[in-house]
């Protein structure tokens, strides 16, 4: 068992290292992963500050901090989706099939992508936090609460990776990229992005109530503010989504194995 785990980890770490190396060495991969999250955060924090003056909006750390949590989750989730493009590229070039010949621990390949995306998301969290600090981010929460907020975000990157990997291992083509991106893009925007859920209007309020990301977002905001609420629910939902999407990812790998 120990030998199996060692071999699994060696494969996963090798895949993870290659993925991270390619990300850093190729600017076309590196730069876009930062542009979207920083642009969204900058534009929302820059343009929408006055939303914080709307009657009924009360968030003690301020609107910049309020929107920061959304940007953090978005950064991590989209980081997971970006891994899907890498997997598609690996299949297009034939590397993925050669990789599956080299190791019998095929789920370790998925594990490697998860590890590298997690590490990349952590780095992106640092960058987004640094930029947000310049713009006016406040972090009144305790160290434990702030760490829990970042952990929620990083676990969302794992969810994004499982989803993207499941898609790309199944279809093995960049042409399904829109089908990979749109559900996650839609899911994160069908949440209380701009205002708390209590201030949402119409159909979006109803949809947001049933969207797991809404509860993760609200919990993240409460942790940042130092007044944690529904944190257990948020972690429970993330764990559940990770489980479901993990099965999706692993069965995607099996599908690629059967395809040869």
């Amino acid at each position, binding site marked *: 068992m120990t030998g199996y785990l060692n071999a699994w980890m060696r494969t996963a770490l090798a895949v993870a290292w290659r993925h991270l190396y390619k990300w850093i060495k190729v600017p076309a991969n590196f730069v876009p992963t930062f542009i979207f999250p920083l642009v969204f955060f900058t534009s929302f924090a820059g343009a929408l500050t*006055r939303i914080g003056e709307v009657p009924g909006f009360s968030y003690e750390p301020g609107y910049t901090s309020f929107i920061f949590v959304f940007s953090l989750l978005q950064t991590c989730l989209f980081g997971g989706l970006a891994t899907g493009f890498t997997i598609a590229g690996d299949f297009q070039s034939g590397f993925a099939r050669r990789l599956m010949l080299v190791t019998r621990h095929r789920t370790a390949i998925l594990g490697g992508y998860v590890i590298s995306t997690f590490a990349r998301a952590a780095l992106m969290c640092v960058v987004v936090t640094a930029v947000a600090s310049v713009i006016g981010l406040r972090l009144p929460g305790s160290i434990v609460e702030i760490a829990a907020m970042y952990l929620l975000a990083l676990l969302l990157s794992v969810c994004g990776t499982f989803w993207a990997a499941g898609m790309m291992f199944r279809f093995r083509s960049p042409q399904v990229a829109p089908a990979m991106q749109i559900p996650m893009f839609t899911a994160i925007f069908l949440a209380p992005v701009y205002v708390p859920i209590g201030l949402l209007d119409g159909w979006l309020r109803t949809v947001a109530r049933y969207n797991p990301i809404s509860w993760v977002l609200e919990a993240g905001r409460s942790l940042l503010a130092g007044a944690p609420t529904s944190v257990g629910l948020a972690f429970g939902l993330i764990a559940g989504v990770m489980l479901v999407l993990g099965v999706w990812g692993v069965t995607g790998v099996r599908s690629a194995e059967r395809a040869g």
Partner: protein
Amino acid sequence: MTGGTIQLSLARQVQVLAWRNIRRTARQPASYVPAFIFPLLMMSINASGLADATRIPGFPADSYLDFALAMTFMQGALFATTTAGLSLGEDIEGGFLDRLALTPMRGAALVLGQLAGAIVVAIAASCWYLLVGVTFGVRLEAGWGGVPVLLVLAFATALAFSAIGAFMALRAGSGEAVQGLFPVLFATLFLSSATMPRDLIEKDWFRTITTWNPVSYMVEGVRSLIITGWDAEALLRDAAVLTGVIALGLYGCSRALRTRLART
């Protein structure tokens, strides 16, 4: 039977290439269906999520849907960028452009013809956005007379962005470079006054960015027809910016095309 060269007029050359491009675009729904769906999805989400923005003193509309509709035209034009660029990139990579260079086809026809498919999609999408907006309660303050003006602005915006996409494709020789351009253009849209009027932006640094960003004037011109009526200043600024971007884009395309084509 004598040999001879049939010399088509520029207009005819553009027509032939444009028709080819339009047919090819129509055969690839994946290239244009997102332009019809995604901007409206975002508009719907923003209209619901930012509905309370209308309670900010001085907000120029009673409904955020009226305010947000203008952004859909910009997003549609963004899709035109990638459609035009990818289409031209395919022709470059497939050697079609090189084969065309052996014919008497003029450079202007090559460029304008290639942009046709993207522009047709953008115009059709603009009509769709307007129809959906009106169905959900948007009323143009400029009245029915504002509709053709709005569509002309949408056409010009699509032409401007398509020219940028075509320029990138001609410079790089591939559609991948155009895909890399998409995040940059997406950024310019969000770093504009698309989500909040410039005079209500509290952060000075962001207000400065939006003031220098030409996309702000494109959005404000279209938006003025919807929420204000006939705002000559906004329309003239929009026209000036579009003229500049189109001129630069087409000039860039002609220079890049000269470098790209190898005439023997």
